[in-house]
């Protein structure tokens, strides 16, 4: 690009202005990428889930339990290959400031149905053998410095008292949408201490073919319809998605703020471009006398705007991507797998182009339409 030195010289004319404008664009796109990633991360969690897994909950409300005796009946439903269940335990650790999920699970069948939770074979064996053992997500290791073999004590908020578990294993999720900060222990231990009420929070089923999901779900729900605890069965994806909707209008909120941010920065960039073009009226006229065409000057002014917005975008989006990667950010467990997706990066790039057009088009058109004779006379 032979006009490069001209563009670079023009950007260097007001170094501070150029720097501040690029920095504004970078900040805006950093913010945009962050806000957008909240939405995509929630959306991704809603996408997570094997198409071969179904979740069965209490039809009246998912916080209500189902009898653990349903397990045997679920296993006999045609198309169901594996069944496991889990209970929300609601443990509190220390001052409770850092919340993490605690489940009581039917350990063997649970790990069997979730191959995405990778546990070293010896640790898995040790966990299965120890009724008072616990399996923890890898993030908890970093968070609290817990080690395998250590005892940890949680306060039960639903099941009163102190609960002490021996950490027997650490799992690493191979799918980023799975929480890496949960603690799991044996259902049997919970049921025994709670006086054998025989309650399961929810069931997870593995089925033979994803295509049969709707049919199997219907069969199950029909079977329990007139029992004391009717069920609601759906795909794991739908179950996760229902949690995503619990955030309410957060998507709208994030998008609105993102739009306001981008628009505010558009004003800053447009202002800077117009100031630059105005100061350069005479130079533009001189270039016209040399033979620079209106179209070329239009392009040069636009390219200058583009250099600013695209440099800003590369810095802002790059910083967002690297920062969240490097810090393994997950919003204190609220947003597992938080990441700036490539889709978001691409959208950010498009925004940079829109910013270029929106901030550069008026000065570029002014430059193209500039009447040479009057522009030269006005200063001579």
């Amino acid at each position: 690009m032979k006009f490069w030195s001209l563009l670079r010289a023009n950007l260097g004319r007001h170094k501070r202005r150029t720097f501040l404008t690029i920095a504004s664009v970078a900040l805006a796109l950093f913010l945009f990428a962050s806000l957008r990633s909240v939405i995509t991360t929630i959306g991704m969690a809603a996408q997570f889930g094997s198409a071969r897994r179904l979740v069965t909950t209490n039809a009246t409300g998912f916080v209500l339990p189902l009898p653990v005796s349903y397990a045997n009946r679920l296993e006999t439903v045609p198309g169901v290959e594996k069944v496991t269940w889990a209970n929300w335990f609601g443990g509190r650790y220390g001052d409770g400031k850092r919340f993490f999920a605690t489940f009581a699970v039917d350990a063997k069948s649970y790990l069997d149905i979730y191959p995405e939770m990778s546990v070293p074979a010896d640790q898995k064996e040790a966990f299965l053998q120890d009724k008072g053992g616990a399996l923890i997500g890898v993030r908890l290791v970093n968070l609290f410095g817990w080690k395998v073999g250590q005892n940890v004590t949680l306060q039960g908020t639903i099941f009163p008292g102190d609960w002490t578990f021996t950490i027997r294993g650490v799992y690493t999720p191979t799918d980023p949408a799975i929480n890496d900060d949960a603690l799991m222990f044996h259902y049997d231990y919970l049921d025994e201490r709670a006086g054998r009420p025989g309650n399961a929070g929810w069931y997870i089923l593995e089925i033979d073919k994803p295509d049969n999901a709707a049919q199997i779900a219907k069969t199950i729900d029909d079977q329990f319809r007139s029992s004391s605890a009717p069920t609601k069965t759906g795909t794991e994806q739908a179950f996760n998605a229902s949690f995503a909707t619990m955030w309410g209008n957060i998507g709208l909120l994030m998008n609105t703020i993102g739009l306001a941010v981008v628009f505010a920065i558009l004003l800053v960039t447009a202002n800077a471009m117009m100031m630059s073009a105005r100061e350069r009226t005479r130079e533009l006229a001189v270039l016209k006398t040399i033979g620079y065409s209106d179209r070329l000057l239009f392009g040069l002014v636009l390219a200058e705007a583009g250099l600013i917005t695209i440099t800003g975008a590369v810095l802002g989006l790059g910083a967002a991507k690297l920062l969240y990667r490097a810090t393994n950010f997950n919003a204190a467990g609220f947003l597992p797998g938080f990441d700036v997706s490539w889709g978001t990066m691409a959208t950010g790039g498009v925004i940079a182009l829109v910013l270029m057009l929106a901030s550069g088009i008026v000065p570029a058109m002014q430059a193209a339409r500039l009447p040479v004779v009057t522009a030269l006379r006005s200063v001579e």
Partner: protein
Amino acid sequence: MKIPITYNLRSMRARPVSTALTALGIALVVAVFIGMLALANGFASALVRTGSDQNVLVLRKGADSEMSSSIDRETASILASVPQAARGGDARAMVSPEVYVVIALGRIEDTTGMANVVLRGVSEQAWQVRQNVKVVEGRRPASGKNELCVGAKLVGRFPNTVVGQTMHFAGRPWEVVCHFTAGGSAFESEMWGENEQVMPAMRGQVFQSVSFRLADPGGFEEAKRSLEADKRFTVDVHRESEFYAQQSQLLGSILRILAVLITSIMAVGAIFGAVNTMYAAVSSRMPEIAVLLTLGFRPRSVLASFLIESAIIALIGGVIGCLLALPLNGLVTSTTNWASFSEIAFAFRITPGLLLAGLIFAVVMGMLGGFFPARRASKVPVVQALR
């Protein structure tokens, strides 16, 4: 000697586009600032207003929400005669053992999505205990019947919530007999029925909490001490207002941190814009400034003059930002109260204090953005600038 402000106003008019763009940039930042804090405010005040200073909430020891608590009938009947409770006109103690359960309801606007709504089973006394609760349409549920009173914020968002209609859940029909308001609090996102009807339908033979009204608001500490020391049961005693305030803490502080984080990043961008504008203003007026200095105006006056100019632009932006944010006031939105997994609807709340904070924020941005350019102006080398 001060430089008259009309001088600044004239110079702002001389470059209207630049002034307008800068002011608008600041306006957007202020609008987002006010909007987000109004959201946090609305959420917090919905939960804070739920609780009363004069009410006491008794939960099982260690339970961090009503949902995770359980109080058996025996405990509830002992608590029913707690001496600190106020008495109503009929001389009965204002005590309400309550069943608290979160149920799934389909929404009107999106029939595939389910929302989690609080169903509260209350005693007849509950309506006296919660003095902010007012039936606005219909009559209270009758004892012994599957009847519901629906909170005002649920009406219209969920099907069959009109008075006279019938809802179906937990395997039985529930007739809607009234609507209630509760001063914009979280109760308005709940459905109330009789505890003895809700309990068997949902959770067997336990209550989740017992609420009572204090005869003497100062009697809380005494009630807390005696109940928590009582050997017959193990409970935690909360002042209702503090309990709900604490429930709002997590999400409230997330919202506030987000608001501060987002607006400060935006503010930096807007300040950069102001810096650009003011530097351009200063450099285009070098000769004027030199003339002012030769006329005997002090550099300090020049500095002040440019700072004032920047602050005025920012203030205009601040006012526009307030006007942009104002329509949000009262807008109802919903999110989940993660302490109970239930949906809670609340309204954006813009207070005069918040608007003032927005304006101050704007002026601060203007002053920060204007400082270095103003200092440059006050140090203009007279001889060079005049040449």
